């Protein structure tokens, strides 16, 4: 089984578990470092950490803060174990984007690549989302100004999150795909949410893993990359700088092939999808490690097999 196939399998399984696991009684808790969206209703198999974070911060009670501490602890443990593989291998919204990408590929349409400068400028979006998720709930809990507006700001990031609109929709639930006319705040927030959702669908169709560059959850996860068990490593001497890893990278991370000194190339945006390892033509130039032990390494043969130049070896 190739890594790509394994990843697709896990993505599909976790999509069903996270979105429909509730039907068979699965509940993985409220601290999942992935878009396990509570808005899908009873069928959900767990709850997204960001939702719980905003909820507990917005609650403001001392108990909520203790609960929050516990959630952060569990969340951290989960992230330390597999790092950002949550994004590349589990996230349902990531899966949805991958499906759109697959359709594009089958249609033999090319993808869009943003210029470096634009990418750098857009990099602040995830920080904006993060501060929305962090600061607005605090304001909601302690409305020192404009309390009337604050009232309508519960789960502010969730209102903007494309997951809230798209994931329920995938289960046939159209309730969230509307503008909420309750107040001006809700109108603005739900409109923005819809806009983001549409741009995700269009974007992911044109650009690989479009949303992942702006996802605040990804930002949170990237902070753990130095202590996480899974790492992407590179043997700089073996690298020929052929750029293959950059061209296959859904997040378009350049630094992996440009790195010339450090072994650790788990960069903040990296979702550990390991496509770069699969498509690296040099033996052992790139590898994924778990607690320092190599679990997957690039091979020249593997490269040529994936290019359909030589037959694929079954054990690869």
């Amino acid at each position, binding site marked *: 089984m190739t890594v790509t196939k394994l990843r697709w399998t896990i993505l599909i399984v976790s999509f069903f578990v996270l979105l429909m696991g509730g039907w068979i009684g699965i509940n993985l808790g409220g601290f999942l470092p992935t878009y396990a969206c509570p808005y899908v209703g009873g069928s959900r198999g767990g709850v997204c950490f960001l939702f719980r974070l905003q909820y507990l911060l917005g609650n403001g009670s001392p108990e909520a803060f203790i609960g929050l501490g516990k959630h952060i602890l569990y969340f951290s443990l989960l992230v330390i174990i597999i790092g950002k593989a949550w994004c590349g291998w589990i996230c349902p919204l990531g899966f949805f984007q991958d499906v759109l990408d697959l359709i594009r*590929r089958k249609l*033999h*349409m*090319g*993808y869009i690549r943003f*210029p*470096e400068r634009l990418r750098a400028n857009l990099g602040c979006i995830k920080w904006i989302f993060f501060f929305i998720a962090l600061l607005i709930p605090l304001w909601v809990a302690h409305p020192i100004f404009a309390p009337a507006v604050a009232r309508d700001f519960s789960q502010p990031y969730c209102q903007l999150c494309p997951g809230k609109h798209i994931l329920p929709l995938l289960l046939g639930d159209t309730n969230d795909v509307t503008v909420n006319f309750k107040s001006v705040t809700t109108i603005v927030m739900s409109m923005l949410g819809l806009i983001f959702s549409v741009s995700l669908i269009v974007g992911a169709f044109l650009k690989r893993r479009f949303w992942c560059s702006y996802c605040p959850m990804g930002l949170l996860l990237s902070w753990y990359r130095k202590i996480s068990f899974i790492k992407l490593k590179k043997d*700089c*001497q*073996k*690298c*020929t*700088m*052929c*750029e*293959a890893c*950059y*061209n*296959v990278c859904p997040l378009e991370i350049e630094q992996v*092939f*440009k790195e*010339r000194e450090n072994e650790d190339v788990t960069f903040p945006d990296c979702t550990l999808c390991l*496509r770069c390892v699969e*498509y690296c*033509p040099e033996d052992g130039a790139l590898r994924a490690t778990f607690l320092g032990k190599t679990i997957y390494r690039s091979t*020249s043969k593997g*490269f*040529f097999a994936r*290019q*359909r*130049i*030589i037959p694929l070896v079954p054990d690869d």
Partner: protein
Amino acid sequence: MTKETDQLQRRKARFVRGLANSAETMLAGLEENPELPEGMHYFIDIMRDIFVKDQEEHFSNPFCRQDANNRKIIGTYCLMVPEELIYAAGAIPVRLCGGSYEASSIGDEFVPRDTCPVVKASIGFTSLNLISLYQKCDVVIIPTTCDAKRKMGEELSKFTEVWMLEVPHVKESEGSRRQWLEQLYALKKNIEKLTGGRFVCGKIRRRELDSAIKMVGRAQYEARRLYEIRKSFPPVIPGREAMLAINAYSYDTAFEWAKAMTGLNDELEDRRDKGRVVAGSHAPRILLAGSPSIFPNWKIPSLLEEMGAVIVVDESCMGSRYLYDPVGITEKSMTDMMVGIAARYLMPCVCPSFAPNEDRLFRLLQMIEEFNVDGIIYHVLKGCIVYDFELIRVEKIMKEKNIPVLRIETDYSPEDIEQLRTRIEAFVEMLETKKKKIKEG
């Protein structure tokens, strides 16, 4: 026939004879080896057909939609011209970088004295049509790599149609990579115009481009297999044979070449398993670095191996680097294929005309390790400033690794062979002593 043209004809005939002679001497020398692998004959024959008999039967293109009379041959220089595009359009790519002493002495008339012999020979070949191959090219594509190659484009345009392909010299920046991609899109359009005219039959289509990438990829896979085989200790193939086989790719179709290479590789792997080696473990293992040795200029490789050393690896653009880096694509869209092609022909290339070119040092270090190299012969063709420039860096890192480096500056002329022989022999002797000492502890 006027007196002048008659004179020209006689002059040309003399050069042609000289070329055929020197090429045949080299080839016969290779064939004298009683241990010559069966699979090598194919490659020797290609060289003989091109340089001695002056005929090319090897040109075919499985994607060619034109009739045989209308097929286009596109000459290329350096290794930045994407063959995949040429194949996909149904044309035939031929690499023209010249290695003949006779041709370079003709070229002397056209270029400044200090120009490198590769450029001299290429101009010599084109100007006097020493071999018909150069005449048959409908167009030649010249990437702007080093100064000499760039100006050569101008000079060659007196004799043939020339397309310049602008290669950025700082490859890391996003702008230059984007510009390179644009260049390739433009080249694609030009090739389509050449092969198809107003008709659609010359268009480079997705499917053909994909197959062309696979076809060249197949050749690269085999070239890499040879590369792996050359790592074996003790060596199973002399460097000059391996280098000739790679060099023959210039004049052959990727498809045919890959087939022949598969045979050679199978044979060599079999020999390796049976322990049939071409030199003992005491023979110094040499990395031939620097300017390319292009057939029939087999001066340095022959001298080195006559002195008892084995060239286990070379890093020149006519040798190991020629077919090393493959095109990596993940989807069949035109965008992705073009991006993949653009990346392959620019990024991993460690031609010293790029700056910064630190990658080359990494590549050399890697070779030293992988191939168990004892010493480096740093070949500098006279006038090849860029390679000479990097010698300082190479010497520095090799000193740290305790690998001796010998710089050999020469051109294609045979006159300095005796001097070189002493120098190379002394170097080989030095390596042998060092090796013996290590072995004895």
